[in-house]
C-alpha cells in the first residue's frame, strides 16, 4: 500500500465512523423501528402504505420494512438465530400462530399487558393462541381458519355431522358422471396433517393436551377420530389414498377441476376457484365450518399471523404504537380489501366496507372462526407436532393401528415434556 492509499483508507474509515455516530444521534431524537413481515407483492404494498401513513401521524418515529423470508420455517429459523444473539432488530416480529408460546417462554418477546391492548375486540381463539402463562404476548393480525368446501350442485345442504358428510359424499360419487373423490384433505406428513387432525379430534370431543399440559392424545375420543379418518380411506373410501401425499394445493386442484364433492382447506382457495376461466366449480360451491361427530363439537383449525415486540428492542413503546396502528380496524379492513386476509376483530365482519369488498363468504368465515381451536399453546409445539405427524401418518398408511400409534405418540410427547422441563416451567410461570 502506498502512503496516499493508507491515508485515503483512514479517511474513508473515519467518514464511516462519523456516519455511524450520526445514526446514533438520530436515534436519540426520535426512534427508528424495523418492522419485519410479509413484504411481497400486493401484501407488501399494503404494509408499506400503512407504514407511511403511520409515520405521517407519528413524525417522531421512523419505520423501515425489513424483508424476511416468506416461508414460515425459514423465517422462524432466522428469528431464533437473531434472538439467540440478542439482536434488537427487527423490533417487530411477525409470528405464526404456533410460535407465540415458544417465543414467550424463551423470553424473546415482551408481554403486552402494560400497554392495555383491546383484548375483548379480538376473536377469543386468537387471543388464547397468543397467551402464555396468563399474559398476552402478541396481537393477532389476520386469521386463517379451516373450512369445509362443498359442491352445492351435488350437495345442496351443508352436512349436520360427519356421518352425514360421508353419506352425502357417497351419494354424489355414485351419481352418473359424479366426481371421482368424495372428500379431499391434507394428509401428507407435514404440519397440514395436524391442522386436519385437530378438526377431526375436536369433532369427536378429544384434545392433544389437557389444561394442565399433560398428554391426552391417546384417549378413546382421539382413537375414534383417527379411526374415522382411516375409514374414509379404506372403508367408505370417500377420500382417495392420494390425500396421504397431498398438501393444500393438490387438494385444491382436485376440487377446482370438479373431481371432489368436499374439500378441507384454508380460505385462500375461495378466490382462485371463483374465477370461471380457470375453475370448473366457479359459482358451484359454498363453504361452512367443519361438521361435528357424536360427542364433540364443530372445530376449525386456527392459523394466521400475529405481531409481537422483540424483547431486545430499544423502543418498545414506539413498537407497540405501530402494532396498535397496524391492527386497528381501518388497517385491517384495508388489508382485507387488498389481499383478502381475514380480520381478527369480530366486529368488522358486519362492516359494510368489508362486505362490499370481495366475494368472500364473510358470515360462514365468521362462524368457522368462532368455532376455531388453537393447536396446543406450548413452547414445545414444533417438536410435539413432528411426533404427531409421524405417528398419525403411520396410522393412516396402516403401518400401525390407531390406538398403537396414538399410544406411541403420547409416550414420546410425554418424554419430550420431561426432557424440556415443561412441568417445572409451567409451575414457575403459574406463580
Amino acid at each position: 500500500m502506498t502512503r496516499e492509499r493508507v491515508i485515503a483508507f483512514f479517511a474513508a474509515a473515519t467518514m464511516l465512523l462519523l456516519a455511524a455516530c450520526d445514526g446514533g444521534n438520530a436515534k436519540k431524537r426520535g426512534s427508528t423501528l424495523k418492522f419485519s413481515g410479509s413484504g411481497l407483492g400486493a401484501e407488501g404494498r399494503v404494509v408499506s402504505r400503512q407504514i407511511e401513513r403511520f409515520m405521517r401521524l407519528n413524525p417522531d418515529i421512523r419505520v423501515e420494512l425489513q424483508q424476511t423470508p416468506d416461508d414460515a420455517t425459514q423465517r422462524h429459523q432466522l428469528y431464533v438465530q437473531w434472538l439467540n444473539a440478542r439482536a434488537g432488530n427487527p423490533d417487530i416480529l411477525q409470528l405464526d400462530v404456533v410460535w407465540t408460546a415458544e417465543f414467550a417462554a424463551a423470553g424473546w418477546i415482551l408481554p403486552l399487558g402494560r400497554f392495555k391492548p383491546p383484548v375483548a375486540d379480538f376473536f377469543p381463539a386468537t387471543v388464547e393462541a397468543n397467551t402464555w402463562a396468563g399474559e398476552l404476548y402478541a396481537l393477532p393480525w389476520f386469521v386463517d381458519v379451516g373450512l369445509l368446501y362443498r359442491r352445492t350442485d351435488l350437495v345442496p345442504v351443508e352436512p349436520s355431522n360427519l356421518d352425514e358428510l360421508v353419506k352425502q359424499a357417497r351419494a354424489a360419487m355414485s351419481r352418473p358422471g359424479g366426481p371421482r373423490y368424495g372428500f379431499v384433505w391434507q394428509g401428507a406428513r407435514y404440519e397440514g396433517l395436524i391442522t386436519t387432525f385437530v378438526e377431526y379430534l375436536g369433532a369427536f370431543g378429544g384434545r392433544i393436551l389437557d389444561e394442565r399440559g399433560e398428554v391426552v392424545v391417546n384417549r378413546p375420543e382421539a382413537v375414534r377420530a383417527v379411526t374415522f379418518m382411516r375409514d374414509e380411506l379404506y372403508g367408505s373410501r370417500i377420500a382417495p389414498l392420494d390425500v396421504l401425499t397431498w398438501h393444500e394445493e393438490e387438494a385444491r386442484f382436485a376440487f377446482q377441476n370438479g373431481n371432489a364433492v368436499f374439500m378441507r382447506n384454508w380460505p385462500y382457495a375461495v378466490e382462485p376457484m371463483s374465477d370461471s376461466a380457470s375453475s370448473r366449480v366457479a359459482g358451484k360451491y359454498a363453504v361452512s365450518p367443519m361438521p361435528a361427530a357424536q360427542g364433540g363439537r364443530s372445530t376449525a383449525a386456527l392459523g394466521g399471523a400475529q405481531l409481537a415486540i422483540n424483547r431486545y428492542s430499544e423502543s418498545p413503546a414506539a413498537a407497540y404504537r405501530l402494532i396498535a396502528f397496524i391492527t386497528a380496524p381501518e388497517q385491517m379492513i384495508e388489508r382485507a380489501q387488498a389481499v383478502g386476509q381475514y380480520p381478527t376483530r369480530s366486529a368488522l365482519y358486519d362492516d359494510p366496507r368489508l362486505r362490499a369488498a370481495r366475494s368472500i363468504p364473510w358470515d360462514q368465515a365468521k362462524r368457522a372462526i368462532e368455532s376455531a381451536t388453537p393447536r396446543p399453546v406450548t413452547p414445545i409445539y414444533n417438536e410435539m407436532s413432528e411426533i404427531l405427524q409421524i405417528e398419525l401418518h403411520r396410522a393412516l398408511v396402516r403401518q400401525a393401528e390407531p390406538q398403537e400409534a396414538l399410544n406411541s405418540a403420547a409416550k414420546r410427547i410425554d418424554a419430550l415434556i420431561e426432557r424440556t422441563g415443561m412441568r417445572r416451567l409451567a409451575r414457575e410461570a403459574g406463580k
Partner: protein
Amino acid sequence: MLVTPALAVIALIAIFPLGWTVWESLHMHELRMPWLGKPFIGLDNYAEIAGDPRFWAALGHTAFFTVVSIALEFLLGLFLALAMNRVFRGRGFVRAAVLVPWAIPTVVAALLWRFMFESQGGIANALLVDVGILDQPIVWFIKTTTAWVPVILADVWKTTPFVALLLLAGLQNIDLTLYEAAAVDGANGWWQLRHITLPLLKPAILVTLIFRTLDGFRVFDLIYVLTGGGPGTSTEPVALYTFNALLQNLRFGYGSALSVVIFAITFGLALLYMKGLGVRLGGEQR
C-alpha cells in the same frame, strides 16, 4: 518443517470444526429453549441416540439404500464401462452422453422422478398398467416397499454414469497385450474378465466403492425431495434425521452428537474398505 503450513491449514479447516462438533455434542444445547441453559451433560446425547429406535431404523434404511443402489450401480456401471471401452465410431459422443444424468443437480433429478411417480395419473403408473404389470394405478409413496422404488431407481439412473466413467478410466490403464497373450493361450472372454480385467481393475473398483458408499451413507437431498422420509419415517436416512434434529428442531447438542456418529461410521467404513481390498490409496499394491 516445510509441511507445517499445510498441517496448520488442515488443522484449521478439518480438525477444528470436528473438535467443536464433538465439544458441542457433550452439551444440552437447544436453541429454541433458552430456559434450559447450555449445561455440560457428558455422554447423555450419545445415550439418547443409542436408545432411540428412530435412529436405529434410520441407520437400517441408510444401509439398505446404500447396499441395494450400489450393487445395481456397480453391475450396470461395469457393463457400460466394458461396452464403452471397445473401439467404435462416436465413442467420444457416447461417453459424453451417458454423463447427462450425472450432470443434472440431484434436487432437479429427484423432482423429475417424483413427478413421474407422484399421482395416480403419473407416467410410471400409466406405463405399468399398459404393460400389464399393475392392475390399477397405485399410490407409490404410502407403502414402504413401493416408496423405495423411485428412490433407488433415481439414484441408479443418476449415478451409474459416474461409476461407469470411473471404471472406464481403470480399464484404459490395463495393458492390451495381456488380453492378446491370453487369447493366444486360448482363454475365453469370461476367463479374461475374471483373471485379467477384474484383478487389474481393483484400484478403480476400490475408489468407486469408497466414493459411492460414503455418498450413499450421506444420502439426503434425493430422499428429502422424493419421500421426505415417509411414509411415517420408514425411508428416513440418518442424514435426514440429523438435519431434522439440527435444523428443524434446532437441537444443537443432540444434532452434533448425531453428526459425530455419522462421521465415525463413514470413517470406519473407509478404513474397512482399504483393509479388506488390500490396496493402499495412492500407493502400490501390498
